């Protein structure tokens, strides 16, 4: 019996740290326990496990835990599982889980993303990729020119925005500054943000790849985030306020960082509104992927919060995106302020805010609609979440 709707029920998160001694599978367990407890479920009610990107054996720091071992270690009797890199960005794993429950093939799907990118550096032989002087696949078009990091690739888009529309560093800096202010009120961000970032400090920061400076790049962290997706006809089994996945969109633009003019966020942003009666004006809070500070600008413009080219002016001064502003942004601190949770943190925080569980960082009013996004460059996926 197919259920037409998919809901996020439980959300959970482990401790977020830098070089945590706790094994990544145990971090995943911590997040999973919290999520099922919140949903009022037990592991034996879970019948699907989905993840992005699945265990990456050649680079365990990036993704140390796969769906196989979560199923086995948590005693889950799973019908459908999926752990894959080839998806339109991180939140696509949650979107795929939504399709699974909508079609009736699963009732409660546990979705997770575990990262061990800080801890992994302490044990490179086990967690880091083997050193190689050769490159193949997509990286052969960038690495030979020492465009080694996604920071360099994102900088190319950001620099175009500066050139074409006049975005200033003072404007761009508001993403990291806003993130740090919110992170100061997030108990799980203590290891990542220890003091508020000021504009002066931002402007003095070491440049990485113009216009991006050190504070525009997220920080490796160790953590796990779990999101439970439940079928509309299984809500009688849960004990929390369900949050509906009102719309979702994904886009892959040629899988290329350098053959396209702008990141895929513009396509996925536009497309999201084709799947819902809600409009951009209904959104009470935005949780935008900020692996690099420029990416939220692309989501602001792509989703239509402002015109293309106006993103810098939209966030100028930071008041509009503050917790008490017109569009509270990255209220847990984002990845810049609260660590590189790699996409799933945005869905976690959207649900936290919609349920009024934000504690000191809770936004005012009674937020009903949130948008969470993930991806960068050629990859993009967005979720519209509603308490309705």
């Amino acid at each position, binding site marked *: 019996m197919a259920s037409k709707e998919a809901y996020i029920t439980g959300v959970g998160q482990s401790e977020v740290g830098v070089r945590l001694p706790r094994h990544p599978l145990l971090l995943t367990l911590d997040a999973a326990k919290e999520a099922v407890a919140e949903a009022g479920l037990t592991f034996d009610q879970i019948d699907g496990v989905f993840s992005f990107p699945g265990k990456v054996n050649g680079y365990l720091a990036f993704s140390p835990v796969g769906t196989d071992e979560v199923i086995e270690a948590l005693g889950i009797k799973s019908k459908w599982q999926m752990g894959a890199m080839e998806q339109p960005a991180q939140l696509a794993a949650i979107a795929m889980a939504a399709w699974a429950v909508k079609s009736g093939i699963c009732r409660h799907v546990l979705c997770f993303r575990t990262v061990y990118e800080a801890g992994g550096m302490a044990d490179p032989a086990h967690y880091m990729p083997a050193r190689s002087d050769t490159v193949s696949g997509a990286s052969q078009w960038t690495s030979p*020119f*020492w465009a080694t990091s996604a920071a360099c690739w994102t900088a190319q888009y950001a620099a*175009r925005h500066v050139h074409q529309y006049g975005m200033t560093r003072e404007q761009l800096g508001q993403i990291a500054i806003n993130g740090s202010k919110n992170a100061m009120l997030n108990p799980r961000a203590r290891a990542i943000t220890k003091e508020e970032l000021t504009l002066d400090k931002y402007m003095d920061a070491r440049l990485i790849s113009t216009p991006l400076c050190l504070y525009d790049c997220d920080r490796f962290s160790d953590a796990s985030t779990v999101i439970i997706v439940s079928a509309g006809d299984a809500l009688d089994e849960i004990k929390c306020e369900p949050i509906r996945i009102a719309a979702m969109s994904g886009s892959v633009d040629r899988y290329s960082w*350098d053959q396209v003019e702008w990141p895929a966020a513009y396509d996925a942003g536009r497309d999201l509104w084709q799947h819902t009666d809600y409009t951009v004006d209904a959104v009470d809070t935005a949780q935008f992927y900020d692996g690099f500070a420029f990416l939220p600008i692309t989501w602001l413009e792509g989703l239509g919060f402002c015109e293309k080219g106006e993103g810098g002016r939209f966030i100028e001064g930071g008041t509009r995106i503050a917790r008490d502003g017109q569009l509270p942004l990255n209220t847990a601190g984002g990845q810049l302020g609260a660590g590189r949770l790699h996409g799933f943190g945005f869905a976690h925080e959207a649900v936290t805010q919609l349920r009024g569980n934000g504690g000191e960082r809770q936004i005012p009013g009674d937020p009903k609609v949130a948008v969470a996004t993930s991806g960068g460059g050629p990859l993009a996926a967005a979720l519209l979440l509603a308490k309705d």
Partner: protein
Amino acid sequence: MNPPRPRPKLDQENTAFWTGGSEGALRIVKCGDCGQFTHPPRVLCRHCQSENISAEAVAGTGVIDTMTINHQPWAKGLEVPYVIARVALDGVPGVYLTTNIVNSPVEEVSFGDRVKVVFEEQEGIFYPLFEKVG
């Protein structure tokens, strides 16, 4: 002294691109049927899926479409800052190359600059770098 550049692993699709510089040629895959270009190189035309393709020498000139000044040494001993640019190639609509702009101080490189290819060889790989024209 900069470390050696990462070396592309040569295969059926990319060899013409990475070795064309031995004959001074920047080679981009062109379709013999529809006449359009495919980059990254493939064994088929990405526009019409024809298999009648070949890597053709192009002008090797272009314009800086976007650029960043990179300050972070991503490898030990890498000299910074340097320019990473995306070059739009003349006569090759829709194809861009990520590359370095060399032989100019970084502060003298900007959007819209005209550039031409200069190959840097390293053990049989000819890296297409670009320098400002005039």
